[in-house]
């Protein structure tokens, strides 16, 4: 019984939140890693691309809700997602045309593109705030819980409760679908193979007749879709606030670099690794330990780091990986 309680506490406070957060980071990191692999620069504007896409999704969601269209138990935002993706894709394609193409044609050094992306980040930052404002918005509707605490307690008779929010489950399901679709696209379709070829060796790809502009366009569209989906899931699960999307840029980069920049599989593994580390390091284990080892009563909360230092965890992971394994766990491109 005590083992069960320990398990429930662990699931409720560590596993489920970390898994949902990990999936959101993984989707964000996939976008970063794709751009790095194919366009060969770290896109600092990715967080704000996510914010822009989510802002459009929220506006369309409000429109749909005012028309009386909802998805029943699912959030209406899922219906609005295609509109958000389309708007974001147009925005990043326009940005590529106006900013990045200029440097690509000149074959500028990657650091110049990175700096350009910092500029783009600030522009998108402002654009999102103009579009929707700086306040916090909650836009999830439909059923809030799949399992709620009270029902779970009644059902199992355990003193500890377990909650599974519908947005957490949705995040995981959507992430699995998106990742599967992405891998199928990259490995099985002609366009996907062209993208991988371009990523592996640009000159060889050009010689074999691959249209580079088409590959670039496709990459941006996929990155925009991933960003919008990741941003919307994050916003549904937590809440939308433009500034928070700027802040999750750091864990997203940590995830992409840990996994190995340019490696899609690495981005996913990195996302979950960063999320689980953040949650596990700042979680006080006293309750779980109390159930597993009933006789043992530790004095403190058994918390390694205060929750204020959550973001520091990403920094530490980033530094350790860069020091000891610069190419990441999955041997991506060197940073």
């Amino acid at each position, binding site marked *: 019984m005590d083992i069960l309680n320990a398990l429930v506490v662990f699931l409720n*406070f560590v596993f489920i*939140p970390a898994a949902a957060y990990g999936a959101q980071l993984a989707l964000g990191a996939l976008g970063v890693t794709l751009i790095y692999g194919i366009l060969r620069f770290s896109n600092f504007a990715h967080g704000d691309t996510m914010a822009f896409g989510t802002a459009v999704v929220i506006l369309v969601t409000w429109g749909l809700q005012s028309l009386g269209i909802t998805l029943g138990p699912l959030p209406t935002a899922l219906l609005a997602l295609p509109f958000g993706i389309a708007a974001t894709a147009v925005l990043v394609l326009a940005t590529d045309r106006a900013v990045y193409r200029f440097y690509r044609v000149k074959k500028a050094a990657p650091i110049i593109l990175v700096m350009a992306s910092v500029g783009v980040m600030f522009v998108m930052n402002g654009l999102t705030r103009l579009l929707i404002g700086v306040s916090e918005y909650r836009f999830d509707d439909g059923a809030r819980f799949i399992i*709620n*605490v009270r029902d*779970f307690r009644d059902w199992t008779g355990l003193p500890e409760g377990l909650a599974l929010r519908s947005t957490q489950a949705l995040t995981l399901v959507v992430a699995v679908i998106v990742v599967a679709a992405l891998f199928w696209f990259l490995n099985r379709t002609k366009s996907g193979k062209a993208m991988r070829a371009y990523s592996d060796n640009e000159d060889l790809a050009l010689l074999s007749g691959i249209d580079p502009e088409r590959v670039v366009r496709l990459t941006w569209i996929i990155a925009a879709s991933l960003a919008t989906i990741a941003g919307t899931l994050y916003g549904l699960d937590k809440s939308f606030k433009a500034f*928070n999307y700027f802040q999750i840029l750091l864990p997203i980069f940590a995830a992409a670099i840990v996994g190995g920049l340019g490696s899609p599989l690495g981005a996913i593994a990195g996302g979950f690794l960063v999320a689980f580390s953040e949650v596990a390091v*700042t979680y*006080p284990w006293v309750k779980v330990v109390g159930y597993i080892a009933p006789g043992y009563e530790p004095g403190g*909360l058994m*918390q390694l780091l205060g929750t204020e230092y959550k973001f520091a965890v990403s920094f530490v992971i980033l530094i350790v990986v860069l020091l000891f394994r610069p190419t990441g766990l999955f041997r991506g491109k060197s940073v």
Partner: protein
Amino acid sequence: MRKLLLATAAGALMAGAAGAEEIKLGVSLGFTGPLESMAPAMQQGAELAMKEVSDSGLLLDGTTVASVTGDSTCIDAAAATATVERLIAAEGVKGIMGGMCSGETIASLENVAKANGMVMISPSATSPALTTIEDDGLFFRTAPSDARQGDVMADIVLGRDIKTVAVTYTNNDYGKGLADSFAKAFEEKGGTVTVNSAHDDGKADYSAEVAALAAAGGDALVVVGYVDQGGSGVVRAALDTGAFDTFVFPDGMVGAALETNFGSEIDGSFGQNPAADGPGRDTFLKMAEEAGFDGSGAFSGEAYDAAALMLLAMAKSGSTDPATYKGSVMDVANAPGEEILPGELAKALEIINGGGDVDYVGATAVELIEPGESSGTFREVEFKDGKMEVVGYR
């Protein structure tokens, strides 16, 4: 040029002579700084009381009252000290209505007011440190100390048979001061605080903070935060994970937003905020509206009361000398005597001139306790069926 100088000097002299029958009161508030939006309504509140007294013509044989404002900035102790110095030395004020924030108030009281023997009545400094400060009987405040709210909150929580609580506070002076004073009072009265930890405002997700609070455990969670900020985020995460289902809300959290955010999910939770009952507040709001400002602004009523108390104390002691009238402030503020509401200052002056006693109630139900601060009336609220209900006053 010389003529001009002479004329200016003469003009200044004449102006000085004309003002001899006038009492100047300093109004030292943070007109710039983090609370600048609150300062104008406070100034207007204080000036409303001064005007009422001047118009009555009953204070010390028809003396009139004028305000001299100074910017205390709220956060810059050096600037506030210089402002108060100027009000006393250059303007010759007979009393100071201010300061606004606790830190600058402490600085200007210790460095200037005490050295000059000047009375200060603050409408809004709530730090517990001002209760124990060595003030030579010169400092009063019409706002309750946060120590008082901590004490009231501890009584309310224990009164509901809740013996162990977890506390989370917003990471600033208000949050920390109130959380600490509550924790101290609660433990002195026999309760247990399992954890007292901070949360930062403006984050997307508070599940990590709530996980830590849940691990420490407790029968209820005391959320010393802001309802439009992290406070609501913490409550949301705690409800979602089932970590707590009873919450205790102090003044920063008690607001209509709680109803819209959580509805019936927080049934059984409770809290308190400073709010005077009685007719004084309504009268003051009406008077403010007629004078063309919003009397419901935070601490506007307290500012009216601060200025009124100072002037009534002068009338009572028959002197504008701070060293003399400081002894009468507590006297006019408390029973025995005729109860005085806002707008009745003329009546109060008449009673005092006739040798009677007054008990100033004012806009905020003033009741000063030693060492010269508002005892503070708190409204206890409770959530039932998704609605906030007032269940009593303490």
